């Protein structure tokens, strides 16, 4: 069997039995990357020399000992480039490690490779990368989703055993759905954001992309925990997220939010997700309809809060201390304006301007303050729902992967790609997307994602439910032909 196709658990069994070595696994991965990444375009760069040294010295008895993990280009790995796929940070090298990287290293993992994404995590197709195009491994003419498109594509294409991404409004779950892998967005504050280049601080959360639900639980075991460097990380005790895996679904109640089964969903997606829901029923789960009445406001609230925070978070990219600086400058004002005009892409500029606008005096109350109030209502919707059910079940995305270039002229339509994922970030709870079947689209077979949403800090239960589905369905075993 080819090593690169293995899940983390399967690889770990072989590493610990001595059947293979971390170095062999790394070389298998590298040769897979060399053969398929020219088509997929998931990686921006790799530090193979350092990974080889780390593999040679790896301790396979550690929780992730000797296992390479690919990293979205928005998470700082000391000594590696970190550009957020933006021209404004081209040539920038991270000077410190994100907390998640320290945790991965402490668990014996090897952070290997930088993954393409929408510039500063703003987008749903990875087309906003200023550096490279990434394709969906199931159909190279289609987008992999976004913003963590590279993270999803490389796992789906067996170019990585697992990867890290970030989810601000669905940026883990949506590409996982579109590429056919497992993507987990932990509860806000469960995983430290220290070292994650901020897009929207109150929404951003780091999470894993994996081939299986069990791998997702294993990675979360390593990533989760209070971090003194991140004041917003939660003071919750650490737990073993694999502990409920394998339990059946008797007594589990799943809620179908009626606002998530609406007109406009691709009929094949709708049918596939409904079939998955019937499967859950067959597994013993009880299905009930619930309502999240403020869902219709989520996209608007999200684009106010996220852009407001982004307008401040991205102010530091000014060409003064690092990153792109324009030439032939007349004065400091000129330096700021031209460096930022040249360095940022269209979508990033659009969001900075939008965020600046909603915070401006005279508009703050009408937009930002109001959005915060509605955000509270959205959070209360979820709280009420989780009093009745263990998890919510719905599509991850209203559609399957679309063609590259199809939406680029229509930002508003692009924003709707995240309608089922955005509210989770506003509420701060956790969510997971996993493969639940395929849709036939113009001769291509494209993955459909099933989304399960859990209450705050209920990742273990969410993973239990996802695992019960996965272990009784074949979808996660399917691989694109490349």
């Amino acid at each position, binding site marked *: 069997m080819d090593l690169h196709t293995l899940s983390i658990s399967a690889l770990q069994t072989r590493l610990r039995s001595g059947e293979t070595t971390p170095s062999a696994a790394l070389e298998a991965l590298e040769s897979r990357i060399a053969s398929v990444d020219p088509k997929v375009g998931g990686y921006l760069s790799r530090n193979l020399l350092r990974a080889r040294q780390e593999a040679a010295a790896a301790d396979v008895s550690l929780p992730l000992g000797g296992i390479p993990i690919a990293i979205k280009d*928005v998470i*700082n790995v000391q000594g590696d480039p970190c550009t957020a796929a933006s021209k404004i940070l081209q040539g920038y090298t991270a000077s410190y490690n994100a907390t998640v990287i320290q945790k991965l290293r402490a668990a014996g993992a090897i952070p290997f490779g930088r993954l393409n994404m929408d510039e500063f995590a703003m987008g749903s197709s990875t087309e906003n990368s200023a550096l490279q195009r990434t394709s969906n491994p199931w159909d190279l003419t289609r987008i992999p989703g976004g913003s963590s498109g590279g993270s999803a594509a490389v796992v789906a294409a067996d170019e990585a055993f697992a990867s890290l991404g970030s989810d601000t409004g669905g940026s883990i779950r949506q590409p996982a759905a579109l590429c056919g892998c497992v993507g987990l967005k932990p509860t806000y504050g469960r995983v430290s954001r220290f070292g994650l280049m901020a897009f929207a*601080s109150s929404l951003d959360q780091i999470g894993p992309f994996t081939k299986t639900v069990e791998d997702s639980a294993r990675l979360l075991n390593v990533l989760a925990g209070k971090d003194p460097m*991140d004041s*917003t990380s939660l003071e919750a005790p650490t737990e073993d997220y694999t502990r409920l895996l394998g339990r059946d679904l008797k007594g589990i109640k799943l809620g179908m939010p009626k606002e998530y089964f609406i007109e406009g969903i691709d009929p094949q997606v709708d049918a596939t997700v409904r079939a998955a829901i019937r499967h859950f029923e067959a597994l013993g789960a009880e299905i009930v309809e619930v309502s999240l009445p403020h869902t219709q406001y989520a996209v608007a609230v999200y684009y106010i809060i996220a852009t407001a*925070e982004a307008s401040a978070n991205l*102010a530091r990219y000014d060409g003064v201390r690092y990153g792109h600086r324009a030439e032939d400058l007349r004065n400091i004002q000129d330096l700021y304006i031209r460096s930022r005009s040249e360095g940022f892409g269209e979508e990033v500029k659009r969001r900075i301007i939008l965020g600046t606008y909603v915070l401006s*005096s005279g508009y*703050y109350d009408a937009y930002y303050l109001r959005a915060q109030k509605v955000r509270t209502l959205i959070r209360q919707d979820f709280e009420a729902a989780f009093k009745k059910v263990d998890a919510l079940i719905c599509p991850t995305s209203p559609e399957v992967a679309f063609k590259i270039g199809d939406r680029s002229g229509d930002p508003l339509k692009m924003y709707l790609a995240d309608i089922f994922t955005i509210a989770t970030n506003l509420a701060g709870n956790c969510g997971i997307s996993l493969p639940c079947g395929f849709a036939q689209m113009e001769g291509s077979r494209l993955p459909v994602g099933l989304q399960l949403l859990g209450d705050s800090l209920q990742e273990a239960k969410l993973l239990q439910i996802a695992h019960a589905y996965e272990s009784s369905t074949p979808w996660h075993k399917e691989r694109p032909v490349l």
Partner: protein
Amino acid sequence: MATRYIPTIGLEVHVQLKTRSKMFCGCPVEYGAEPNSHTCPVCLGYPGALPVMNETALRMTALTGLMLNCKIAEVCKFDRKNYFYPDMPKNYQISQYDRPICEEGGVPLHDLAYPKDAQKAIQHPGKIVKLVRIHLEEDVAKSTHFETSTGIDFNRAGTPLMEIVSEPDIDSPEEAFAYLSALQQILVYGGVSDADMEKGQMRCDCNVSVRPEGTTELGTKIEIKNMNTISGVRRALAFEIERQIEVLSKGGSLAQETRRWDDGLGQTSLMRIKESAHDYRYFPEPDLLPVDTRVFMEEVRKQRPELPAEKRERFVQSYGITDYDAAVLAADRALADYFELAARGTSKPKALANWILNDLLSALSDAGETIRECRVTAAQLAALLSIIDSGTINAGQGKAVFADMLRTGKDATVIVEEKGLKQESDLGAIEALCQKSIDANPKAVEEYRGGKTASINFLKGQVMKLSQGKANPAIVGEILARLLG
């Protein structure tokens, strides 16, 4: 008759807190360190770095609020203040907008806080200058402009800075002076800052306007910056008030603007005209949670020291010293502590206060030293006073002994021993000298007996001279009175 104008002054004071580390990272706070030696991803605003609150800075600000009688918010929060400037690494400053830690309160002024030449004519004795608020924010980096470039030192970036905003409640440059020196005293008392303006630990922006007497609407507000001393603030305000009155009296009008004080030239000049209020687009800092101050207020209350005003009052009450002496002693917490320590070893606190305020302070000022560097400990001074009091040496000898003590740090008894300075208390010997002086000065004797009792002091002086200062003056006085009786 020419119109009289009334000035209105409000001050914004920025105070560097005396924390060991910066406000949101672990970098040390050190004045005068090698530029850019105390930096990290957080205070350099590197991508992905996050702030973590330094609770000591919060406690110090809350303590300041307690000392100034402010309302302390039970929950306060931090906000981002957005503007672009190279000295601000994130291009937003973490500050407090609508929910500062402290609100209201005031700074009590006292006579000695005024400039010396103005202490005789204080308009509002015992005034308390009202405060609007005190909030906490991070300082920016320090820019240094060279001929063709600007250097930025990020050591200062992210150090905790407290902003104390007064109401426009100050009526004169002298009152502004008194406000700043009284405030400075309190800050030093609380140990929250050294508040040295010359080191930039305390910085002050002034808002000043004038209006014709009898009117209520405030005149055009003008901001003055760049004062490096408290007396500089006084001078700048005096200049600015005069300038504004002159413009108005000639029928001119004033524009809302910011002016820079040039201490060398002794004048303000235009920095920039305020066209419209800058939109800082404040919004709540999402990287920090709101702070519940209740968890530490109990401890902060215990840290609240006795304040200068309270100390002054207590000194007058329990030591019977004058208001003035109490004020001078209380002006410097170290000096006040010295006095109290010495007072434990003497029964004459008034004499002690005299010694400290006259002999000790002038000796220290001659040597350019502070009380902290003084070689004579409080206990040693008390011991000196007690041997003077017991008559072992007289006051004149005491001064000489004290000078030696300051120089050598030796105990008074040791010096007295070494120099053989024991005071003459042999009654027979003193009586002989007294008789000698009476015999030699018949005119003084005659005057004394004619009712001019002060003449006895002349005779006393003669006896002291004859004894080479060794006679106990009290005994001399008694014997002379008896002999002349």
